[in-house]
């Protein structure tokens, strides 16, 4: 699956949706020091679906957390839209998350006390905003949850829960949606449903999405794939197919096989 030209449904200034410049992330000190990111430079264009891949421990989650302002960087700068994330106070970060960012985690995405619909509307409720009914309807229809809105998370399957999480991330039309292995816990069919939905929200509604994944097929839904190894960007693919992704991964594995000291 390859992308066509950038979608026209949502016109914005031609700046990037999120950008990292010379980002370093170091955990611990002395003997226990781990360098998770080594001067990463990356720009995520608006209205595009970007996948981040790489061996386990290569720093994918770390990069995503830094981009989303969930974690602080050791050195370098991070921007979401035209806001510099690095250096924001907790209040500033809270506002950023309210206004510009949506999250989809691998699991435990939903509050058990809320129904699916309430979970979807939670970010808006917290921000004290009203949902655009038209958009809400569109999102619900796209995720195909119409008859399940009144259910609680415990009454939904894993795939349905992830779709609710997707709807929640999209309903406030954030600048960027960050997803860390959103299909990691799902079987291939439910995974395909969720990925298809993410793809459509990019293609049809111009949403920007960044997704960490281990799955070559999942990565192939993206417009662009960034490969990390040892905390650095080592390769990039546009218009990926599963085969090309696998090939690239293999070529990465040879010089630095999994399990060796990164």
């Amino acid at each position, binding site marked *: 699956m390859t992308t066509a030209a950038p979608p026209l449904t949502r016109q914005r200034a031609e700046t990037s949706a999120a950008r990292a410049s010379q980002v370093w992330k170091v955990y611990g000190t002395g003997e226990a020091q781990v360098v998770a990111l080594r001067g990463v430079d990356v720009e995520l264009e608006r209205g595009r679906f970007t996948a981040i891949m790489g061996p386990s421990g290569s720093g994918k989650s770390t990069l995503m957390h830094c981009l989303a302002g969930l974690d602080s960087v050791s050195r370098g700068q991070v921007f979401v839209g035209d806001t510099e994330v690095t250096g924001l106070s907790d209040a500033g970060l*809270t506002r950023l998350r309210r*206004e510009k960012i949506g*999250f989809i*985690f691998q699991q435990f995405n939903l509050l058990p*006390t809320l129904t699916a619909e309430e979970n979807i509307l939670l970010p808006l409720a917290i921000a004290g905003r009203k949902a655009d009914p038209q958009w809400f309807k569109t999102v619900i229809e796209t995720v195909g949850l119409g008859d399940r809105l009144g259910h609680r998370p415990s009454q939904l399957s894993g795939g349905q829960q992830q779709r609710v999480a997707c709807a929640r991330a999209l309903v406030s039309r954030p600048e960027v949606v960050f997803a860390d292995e959103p299909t990691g816990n799902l079987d291939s069919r439910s995974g395909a449903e969720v990925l298809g939905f993410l793809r459509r929200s990019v293609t049809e509604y111009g949403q920007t999405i960044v997704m960490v994944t281990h799955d070559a097929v999942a990565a192939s839904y993206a417009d662009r794939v960034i490969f990390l190894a040892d905390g650095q960007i080592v390769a990039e693919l546009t218009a990926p197919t599963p085969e090309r992704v696998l090939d690239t991964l293999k070529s990465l594995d040879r010089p630095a096989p999994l399990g060796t000291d990164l």
Partner: protein
Amino acid sequence: MIKASLRGLLQRKLRLSLAVFAIVLSVAFLAGSLVLSDTLNARFTALFSTINQNVSVVVAAKDPQAVEPARLTDAQLRALSEVDGVKAVSPDVSAQGVIPFRATDGEPVSADAALGFGVDGNDDPLGLVELREGRWPTAEGEVTITAHTAELAKVKRGEQLKVYLPVLNEPRSFTVVGVAGYSGGRDSLAGEVVVMFQQAFAQQTFYGGTGLYGGASFAAEDGVSDDTLKQRIVEKLPAGFKALTGQESSEEQSAQVGVLFDVFKYILIGFAVVAGVVGIFLIFNTFNIIVAQRTRELALLRALGAGWGQVAGSVLLEALIVSLVGATVGLAAGIGVAAAGEAAITSQVELPAAGLVIAPLTVILAYLLGVVVTLIAAFVPAVRASSVPPVAAMRDVVRPDKSLTALSIVGAVFALPGIGLVLLGAFADLGGTAFLVLLGGAVLVFIGALLLSPLLARPIVRGLGALIGRGSAGNLGVRNAARNPRRTAVTAAAIIIGVTVIGMTATVVQSFKTSLEDIMGDNIGVEVMIQANVTAAPDGRQGFNPKALDQVRAIPGVKEAAAWHFDALGVSVAGQPQAFGIFATDVGQASRMFPFDATDGQIRTLAAQELVLDDNIAETLKLKAGDRTPVVIGGVTRDYTVVGVYQATPIIQGILVGEAAVADFPGPLAFQGFVSLNDGVDAAPVVEKIETIMKDYPGVQVGDRQSYVDQATASYDFLLIAVQILLLVALVIALLGILNTLVLSIVERTRELGLVRAVGLSRSGLVWMVTVESVLITVFGVFLGLALGVGLGAAFTKALMTLEFATVIAIPWLELGQYLLAAVVAGVLAAVIPARMAARLNVLDAISYE
């Protein structure tokens, strides 16, 4: 397996320290109250052993409360002193209620005990009392007083002191010729006032003749044991007397006199009971949550091959270790609290030192509460946890709400018959048994309500939440409070218990007050009341001389003044003892002042050997107008004729006889006086004038209607305050229990907290969310507690109304509002630490928390 559970212990430090904290807190309150109570008791006993330290044997009248208690004659005393082995004798000539008046303002000195002694001019042969300055009294008009008395009465040697003499029923003036103290340099033993008179004068005054003694204390010669001497004295003992060893006498005295300390002790025991009951809930809840949170881990152990018993065993082992630590620390903390309390109290009240008393019972109860309750609390969830299928470890454990049906059915089984009994007690005319029925019903309703509280938690919390849970953060807080109704209910249980008791007390007290005000306002023709303030059963020896009313009648504006005599000592009518005593007054005059409503015969001024009584008593005694019945007053039995029966009302009830009967009363004093005024006369100046007239009678109070109501309800106010203090204790423990539950809930919901933060909830939003949950738990407890308390209080009041003790059910809205406010404040306070904990969570850590 043991190793695994020990390692587990260390790894869950926070949760375990909360569990230990719960146990320490409950045990500390319990042990502290018990140790303090025992310690004060020991000090009090030590007080009397000081008095009796040189005393081997005490001889005293068997029945000192009798109208004519037995007296020792000179000859009898001499015979006893000649018993082989007696070294020294200290004869006793004494009376209670010997009250000095302050030299400065003429007001009677107030003290818990005011004693008068007759002394023979020599030093105390037993060495307890020592002369400090001047000399012992040798003439009728002389007294020697203790240093404490001199200080309170503000007199010095050589000055005049006015003293009220109980048997003469009037004050006399004396010259202070000496000041004495106790051995060891103490001014008083326990704050009592003591006036010592010349012996012959004291004998004449207290006993009505010289050469008479109330008893005596004996010291034994060396080598003669107290018991031996007691045996020898008993052989020569005159009729009507008993002999006790010094030790026995100390115990008896401390048991009799320690009324104040008894009240204190009961309050402390109340503390201990509240701490114990509330502690059970606190420990139970904490352990329940902790084990429930480990379900997944326990399931993993099961998956790895651990057996059912091993899993349950590991939980119980952990509970045992935690509870032993908690109970031990709690006991130590309790002893510390008691030591502090003792220091605070003895800085106010002089008492001999006795050291902290840690009774075996205290230790047993502490460990029973700390260890046994914890093991039981852990056992239930341990069994539940061990039955978790191993597969639960592999999945995100969705703990489905356990159905509340069974619990609620049991609750209803308690509550419904309970409600039935309460209604029966309130509405059926059952007489005195109504209160037993009510009490039984109340206990059942209460247990039922506690069992039903999980079922009620959700709707009530949601209902209340709709009021305060504004905004999405508040809304999340409401949902959190409602999500686990068992947890909410158990956490609130401490509050429910405390508030039910206080709500009930407040309602009864308020109803009682309002009733009294209603009646006083409307129906009576009395403007000023004179009232003796007594602690013992009145019998005509407390109050004022009825002749003083002649002076009252002479005050301009006074229409009538009536004296009421009252005897509640050994009165019986128709062969039945009358605990509420008998009144003697001019009933004809009384019927002009109070609303007597004759239901049988007539209500008029009574001749000798005539009586009237209220319909309730008439029914109990099966008497009607015209009947003749034996009446015992002051030990004299006479046949009386029933002249009339009147309807009992909250202010007028009881048996009344004519003034002629006062001759039979143990004492001639009037207990109450009622004064009516001419139309348009202002009561205040009259009250003032009557106060001057009554000044010579200590303990007699004068006031208008309102002050009468206040006085009549003062003891209920005291009860209310005592109960409020208990509530405070319950509230403090409950507050900490809520804190505990919230902290555990926050640990449990770490991921959720991270999630809501990730989707944009601010720190203050999170704080608000936790606060709303906390406040809802407390308010739920108060709500249920007040509903129960006011309901039961109203039922008790209804029963009181049937017995004519009250006329209306009044709900103390102001107090109820205050309790609610206190609960909200407590809820906010309880949330402070957990909310800060939640707000400090790092979003990323919280999201990746397992």
